């Protein structure tokens, strides 16, 4: 099925090149069909005004049947946003990346969802179990069985 993920990502990449990305989202790096980087910014009035974040997407050959592994980049240039569903190591607790993933979703639609997740945030803080989670978290967020705390945000 490797051909499917490649063909699908080729199509997504062509769409981005032809039609551009929604405002606040830019493609940073997509040199292969395994790992992509995008930047994310919340425009307009929000708690994250002026902050730019980077997202790392990792695709398995089973993509888009299986969900991509998505996390915020944490390095000397980027930080994970301070948000109740984002751990300080960049892992994201969002149901669409797990049980609610649907193969019709795409890289861009994930970005838009995360953008609105940040935009609607009312309280900039880490998840309550951040320290415990980060201390034992696997490198790949897909290996974590998240219990989705609430569907509202």
């Amino acid at each position: 099925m490797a051909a499917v993920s490649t063909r699908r990502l080729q199509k997504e990449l062509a769409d981005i090149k032809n039609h551009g990305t929604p405002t606040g989202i830019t493609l940073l790096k997509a040199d292969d069909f395994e790992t992509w980087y995008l930047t994310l910014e919340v425009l307009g009035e929000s708690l994250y005004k002026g902050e730019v974040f980077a997202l790392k997407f990792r695709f398995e050959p089973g993509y888009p049947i299986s969900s991509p592994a998505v996390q915020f980049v944490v390095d000397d240039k980027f930080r994970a946003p301070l948000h109740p569903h984002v751990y300080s190591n960049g892992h994201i607790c969002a149901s669409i990346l797990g049980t609610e993933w649907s193969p019709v979703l795409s890289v861009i639609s994930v970005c838009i969802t995360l953008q609105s997740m940040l935009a609607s945030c009312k309280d900039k803080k880490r998840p309550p179990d951040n320290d415990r989670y980060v201390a034992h978290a696997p490198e790949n967020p897909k290996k974590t069985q998240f219990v989705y705390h609430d569907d509202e945000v």
Partner: protein
Amino acid sequence: MSSDYEYSDNELYDEDEDEMMADEDDESASDMELDGFNDVPVKSKLKSYEVEHISLSQPQVEKLMKTDVDHISGIFGVDAEIASLLLRHFNWNKEKLIEKYMDNAAVVTTAAGITVPEKESSGSSSHRSSSSPSQSQTKILERITPPPAPNEPFVCPICCDDAPTATFNLICEHKFCTNCWNAYIESKIRTEAEHWITCMADGCSVVCPDSFIRTALKDDTSTWNRYQELLVRQFVSCNRNLKYCPYPSCTYTVSCPSGASKSALTTIIPIVTCGASASHKFCFGCNIDADHRPCICAVAKMWLQKCQDDSETANWIKSNTKECGKCQSTIEKNGGCNHMTCKKCKYEFCWVCMGPWSEHGTAWYSCNRYDEKASVDARDAQSQSRASLERYLHYYNRWANHEQSAKLSVEQHAKTERKMEEMQITSQLTWIEVQFMKKAVDEVFKCRMTLKWTYAMAYYLEKGNEKELFEDNQRDLERAVEELSELIESPIDPETISVLRQKVTDKAVYVQKRNEIVLEDTANGFQDGRWKWNVPVEGFD
């Protein structure tokens, strides 16, 4: 739910012998009819410590499911496939489904993902459909559309194949190519163990019926079989009279109505065995995959919890250490005089009375403040926790010892067996003649498991005559088991083997009897409410 109704339902199925048994309903769960199973041995005389149960193979459970499905399909006048989806949506609660469906069929079928929600439906139309559900909705669940007309090229939104050979869609008309459906359904079943598979479109809750899944999986029968297993598992988990065998990759189900209610667990220990293997023994009450007789579930759980958590570590600390009166560091005194200086905060105090050393004047080695009330209390508390630790360790050591010995006896047996097989070749003995050891080892293992749990039980039993009798039985069994264990370990040579065989066989019979006495007596005690506990136990007042 009226009994008249149930009765007529029964009669309906009486015509068909095979379908006889399946009418069990959730409320009066205890009287499941089980006449339909002829391959289950009739257990005529159950011991008081045994519980009636029946092992069901996957096809047998499927038959039960089919009866429910046919029942619903008959009442509602819908296809069996739709009836099955409705039941699964309602967790196989027939009464609730019937009530809700009769109330408003359209809402129910939409919520179950069987019909597409009507877009901006006017109140009247949805009302109309509820009154005549069968005809207006038989269009539901159509699938497999022909490939798109050549003038409008179809691109699968998932794999972006612009020339797929065929596409499928559910009634929601979200079209995807067959390969994507196949990969999607396979991954749902294989990796997510999901039996409720909805359309791939984002936010669409239309569900895939069985025939659709079958078609989409093409000739992948192993995934299809897994799907069938998942359906059975869901059915079993929805019925409290049924439990799935917890042993890995076992597909048997056990029905044990008498062990299904929580209140029954104070008087019985529903240890059941599934039909796949005699070693697939588990507790219907608490799902421990072992025989924990003679302990009831609540006591077994408390004991395991106690052994597992560090409450006894804490107890050791309490009995062997004291806290610095100033900085609360934990200090173990392992020698020296009573004049202590805390390593951490340099606080000087007396080990005996825990008061500051400065008040002790010149009484260097004895504390004259020993009997002051505070220190008496502290001393009492400490000796109490010391006693409780000793008590726990008494029971725990014996518990652990039996577990260890049981393991060792199995290892020992493996060695003996090799030796006996050698003897078969080198001497005149037949295979039958060297088999007696196996039975004895099995018996020892079984009895050590019983003994193990008798210590857990004794730990929680209230002191008194009953406990003494219990411990007498325990002692007799223990003695017999130790003797048999010793015999098993005795050296084997062809000259003496016939004597040894006689001894081992006799002892094994005796041990078996003693084991039965322990189990029977405790089981009767639970029935009579004879056992009293020294701690509050769930279900007892």
